[in-house]
C-alpha cells in the first residue's frame, strides 16, 4: 500500500510527461524532427543546403553512441577494479578499495571543465597541425572526434564508480564456496570469474550500469562544456530557444523510451533466471596471492585510473583555488557547507528508507505488478532534473488551482526545503533502490523462514536479520545517494526556496555561468571535500552498526 503511494508520488511528474507528449505535435516539434522544417530552404531555392538528416536523428545517434561507449567503458573499468580489489592481494589494496569511489565526488561538469582547461591548448595546436597537413575537412572531423572521445572519457571517469561500488558489494557478498568449487573443478581464476562470479553478481552490476546509463542520458552541463549535442541538450534547446515546453517534454519522452528499452533488456537479462543465492555468505574471503610483477602492475593501473579520474582534476582545482584565494576567502562559503550537508544527509536517509521499503515489498510480494511498480518508480532519474523541476512546478500549480491544499504546498516548496527533499526522492529513488534490491536478493530466503519459525514477525526479522546483512549494500547506497544529492544542480536551481544556496549551485554559478574558474574552484573543492566527508561518515556509521 505504501509502495503504491510512493510510486504515485513518483509517477505524478511522469504522468505529466506522458500527458504532454500525447498532445498533438507542435511546430517546434517539426523543427526538430524534419529536414528543412517549414520548407524555408526550399522556398528560397536553396535545395542543395538541405541536410540529409533531421536534428532529431543526429542527436539520437549521438546520444546512443555516447551511451554505448560510456556504458561499455564503465562496465569494464568498474567490474575489473571491483574484482581485483575484492579478490586479489596487492600493495595499497585497502586504500585503493576506498579511494576508487572518490571520482564520484566530483560533479561531472567540473570534471569536464577541468579536462577542457587541461587539454584545450593541446587540442587547438593539434587542430592547427591537422589542418596544415590534411586540410580543413579533416580538421573538422578531428575536432568532433576529439570532443566525442573526451566526453566519453570524462563521463566514464565520472560514472564508473557506480558500477565499481555495485560490483564490489556483490563480489564481497559472494560466498567463497562457489569460487572454491569452481577451482576444484579445474577452472582457472579468470574462468571462475567469468562463469561463476560474474553471473552471480549480475543483478548488482546491471543495477550499477543502469545508473551509468541514466546519468549519461541526462547529462547536460558536461555536454555543453564539451560541445556534444545529445537529446538532453536538445531538450533545453526546445525549451529555451524554440520556447516550446511541449516539444521539450516530448523529447524527455524519447529519452524515457530509450530507458524503457534498457529496462526491458535488463529484465530480460536477469529476469529469465530468477535465482536466489542458496548459501549463506561467509565473511572475509581469502585473497588470492599473485606474483610480484603482476601485483605491481595492478597497483599501478589502479593508481593511474585514480590519478586520471580524481587526482589530476582535483590538483587542477587546487591550483586554480590557490590563485583564487588571493582575492577571496573561504569563510563566505562555509555557511553553504552546513546547508548542503544537512539537505543531503536528510534526503539520503529518507530515500534510503523508501528504497528499503520498496525492495522489501518486492521480496514479500514477488508478484510481477509489484516488481513493475518498483521499476517504474525509478524512472524519475531518467528525466533531466530541470524537466522534472518544471513538471513538479506545473503539478504544484495544477493542484493549487484545483484544491485548497495550497498553503501546505506553499510551505513545502517555497517556504522550506522539504519540497526539494520530496523532489530528490522522486529523482534519486533510482540510485537507492538497485543496490538494496541486489543486496536483498543475495540473502537466502531460508533465513527469513528460519526467523519466522522462531516467532519473529515482519519488522523484527527485518531489524534483526536483514538490516545487519544488508550493511554493505546500504552503505554503498548511502554513499551514492549522499554524494549525488550533494552535487545535484538543476532541481535545486529550480525548486530551492529564496536565499537558499547549496555548494552545488554556488559552484555552478561561479564555474559555469561566470566562468570564474579561480573563484569557483574554492566551492568546488569544498563540495568535493564534503563528499569525501560524507563517504567517511557512511563508512564510520556502517562499521559501528
Amino acid at each position, binding site marked *: 500500500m505504501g509502495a503504491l503511494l510512493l510510486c504515485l508520488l513518483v509517477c505524478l511528474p511522469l504522468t505529466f510527461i506522458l500527458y504532454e507528449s500525447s498532445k498533438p505535435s507542435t511546430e517546434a516539434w517539426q*523543427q526538430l524532427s524534419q529536414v*528543412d*522544417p*517549414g520548407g*524555408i*530552404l526550399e522556398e*528560397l531555392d*536553396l535545395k542543395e*543546403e538541405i*541536410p540529409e538528416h533531421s536534428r532529431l536523428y543526429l542527436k539520437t545517434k549521438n546520444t546512443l553512441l555516447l551511451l554505448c561507449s560510456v556504458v561499455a567503458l564503465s562496465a569494464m573499468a568498474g567490474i575489473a577494479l571491483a574484482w581485483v580489489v575484492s579478490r586479489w592481494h596487492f600493495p595499497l589494496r585497502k586504500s585503493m578499495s576506498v579511494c576508487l569511489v572518490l571520482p564520484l565526488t566530483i560533479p561531472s561538469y567540473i570534471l569536464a571543465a577541468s579536462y577542457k582547461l587541461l587539454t*584545450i*591548448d593541446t587540442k*587547438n*595546436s593539434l*587542430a*592547427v597541425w591537422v*589542418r596544415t597537413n590534411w586540410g*580543413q575537412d579533416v*580538421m*573538422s572531423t578531428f*575536432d*568532433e572526434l576529439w*570532443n566525442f572521445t573526451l566526453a566519453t572519457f570524462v563521463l566514464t571517469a565520472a560514472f564508473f564508480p557506480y558500477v565499481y561500488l555495485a560490483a564490489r558489494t556483490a563480489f564481497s557478498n559472494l560466498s567463497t564456496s562457489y569460487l572454491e568449487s569452481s577451482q576444484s573443478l579445474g577452472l582457472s581464476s579468470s574462468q571462475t570469474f567469468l562463469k561463476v562470479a560474474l553471473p552471480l553478481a549480475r543483478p548488482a552490476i546491471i543495477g550499477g550500469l543502469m545508473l551509468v546509463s541514466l546519468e549519461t542520458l541526462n547529462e547536460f552541463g558536461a555536454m555543453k562544456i564539451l*560541445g556534444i549535442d545529445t537529446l538532453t*541538450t536538445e531538450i*533545453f*534547446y526546445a*525549451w*529555451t*530557444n*524554440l*520556447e516550446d*515546453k511541449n516539444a521539450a517534454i516530448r523529447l524527455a519522452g524519447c529519452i524515457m523510451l530509450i530507458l524503457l528499452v534498457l529496462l526491458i533488456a535488463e529484465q530480460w537479462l536477469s529476469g529469465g533466471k530468477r535465482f536466489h543465492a542458496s548459501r549463506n555468505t561467509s565473511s572475509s574471503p581469502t585473497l588470492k596471492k599473485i606474483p610480484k610483477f603482476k601485483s605491481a602492475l595492478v597497483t599501478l593501473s589502479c593508481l593511474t585510473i585514480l590519478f586520471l579520474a580524481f587526482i589530476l582534476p582535483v590538483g587542477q582545482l587546487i591550483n586554480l583555488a590557490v*590563485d583564487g584565494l588571493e*582575492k577571496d576567502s573561504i569563510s563566505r562559503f562555509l555557511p553553504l557547507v552546513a546547508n548542503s550537508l544537512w539537505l543531503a544527509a536528510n534526503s539520503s536517509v529518507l530515500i534510503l528508507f523508501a528504497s528499503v521499503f520498496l525492495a522489501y515489498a518486492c521480496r514479500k510480494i514477488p508478484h510481477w505488478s509489484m516488481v513493475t511498480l518498483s521499476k517504474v518508480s525509478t524512472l524519475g532519474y531518467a528525466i533531466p532534473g*530541470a524537466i522534472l*523541476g518544471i513538471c513538479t*512546478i*506545473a503539478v*504544484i*500549480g495544477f493542484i*493549487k*488551482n484545483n484544491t485548497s491544499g*495550497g498553503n501546505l504546498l*506553499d510551505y513545502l516548496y517555497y517556504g522550506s526545503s522539504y519540497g526539494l527533499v520530496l523532489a530528490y526522492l522522486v529523482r534519486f529513488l533510482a540510485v537507492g533502490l538497485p543496490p538494496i534490491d541486489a543486496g536483498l536478493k543475495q540473502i537466502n530466503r531460508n533465513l527469513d523462514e528460519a526467523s519466522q519459525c522462531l516467532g519473529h514477525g515482519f519488522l523484527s526479522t527485518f531489524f534483526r536479520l536483514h538490516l545487519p546483512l544488508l550493511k554493505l549494500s546500504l552503505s554503498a547506497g548511502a554513499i551514492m545517494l549522499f554524494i549525488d544529492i550533494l552535487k545535484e544542480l*538543476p532541481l535545486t*536551481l*529550480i525548486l*530551492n526556496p*529564496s*536565499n537558499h*544556496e547549496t555548494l552545488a*549551485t554556488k559552484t555552478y*554559478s561561479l564555474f559555469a*555561468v*561566470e*566562468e*570564474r*574558474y*579561480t573563484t569557483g574552484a574554492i566551492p568546488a573543492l569544498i563540495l568535493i571535500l564534503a563528499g569525501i566527508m560524507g563517504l567517511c561518515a557512511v563508512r564510520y556509521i556502517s562499521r559501528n552498526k
Partner: protein
Amino acid sequence: TLYTYRHYEADSALYEKFTQKTGIKVNIVKSKADALFERLKSEGSDCKSDLLVTSDAARLVKAKNLGLLQSVESSTLFTNVPANLRDEDNQWFGITVRARVIVYNKDKVKAGAITSYEDLTKPEWKGRVVARSSSNIYNQSLLASMVANKGSKEALLWALKLRKNMARKPQGSDRDQMRAVAAGLADAAIVNTYYIGLLANSQNTKDQEVASKIAVCFPNQDSTGTHINISGAGICKYSPNKANALKLLEFLTSVEAQSTFPKTTSEFPLSMKSDSPLILAWGKFKADNLKLSELGKHNATAAKLFNAANWE
C-alpha cells in the same frame, strides 16, 4: 523577493549596498531564466516575487508576453534608461549593456579588414571563423536584430554562409572562441564585449595571453551599428512589495550602481560612458539603436533560421 537569472557575484554586493542604504532586505532566488518563468507562471496571482532580473532583452519580452510583468511610471527610470533600452509599455528596463562584436587575431588579420558582420560571410573567410552554438540567446538576438533590420531572407543567407565559413562545429563559450582565435585555429570570432573584459582582467596568465593576442572590431559602424543587448529587470505583475521593488530597480539604474558595472563585470553602463581603462581603450562606437523590444518579436524566427542554416 528578487528572482534573478544573473549569477554574478558582484550583483550580491550591490544588493547589500541597497539594504544598507534603505534597510530593505533583498531575498534572492537564482535560477535559469526559463525555470524562473515557469515558477512565476505556476505561482500566478499568489506571487512570491517582486522583481525579475535577467540577461538579454528577448527574455524580458518573453516575460512580458507571458504576462508576468507590470507597467510602472517612474521619472527616475525614464531619465536613467534610454528609450531604446526599455519597454514601450514600461514593463521592463535595461540595467547594463553589452555589445556583440567581432574579435580577430592581431597577427593574421589587418586592422580594418573586417568592418561588418557580413564581411565574415565572404568566401575568403572560409575555414577562418568560429562562433558558439545557436542555442545561445546572444546569437539568437543578434540574428533577430538582422531580421528586424534587413528581413529574414538576408538573415538566413548570412547565417548559412557564415556557418559554411566556420573552422569547426559551433561549440563552447565565447571564451573558447577567443582561445581558438588566439591559438590560430581561426582568425575571427563573434563574442560579447564583457567576455573580453573578463579575459583581460583574469588572474590567469594564460587568459591574459589570449587577451593580448586578439583585437576587437565594432562592426557595422557605417550601417546599422553594432548589435547591443542588455541585462534588465521588470516588476512582477503580482508583486507583493511593489514600492520596494521599484526602489531597488531605481537604485540599480542610479549612477552609483551603474558606475560599478564596468569594473566588476566589464559591462557597459546604460549611459555607455565609463572611466574603466578597458572600455576607454575600445573607444566610442556606434550602437544599433534598434528598439530592443523588436528582438523579442523576431526571436522565434531567428531560432528557425539558425535551424534551417544548420547552425547547431
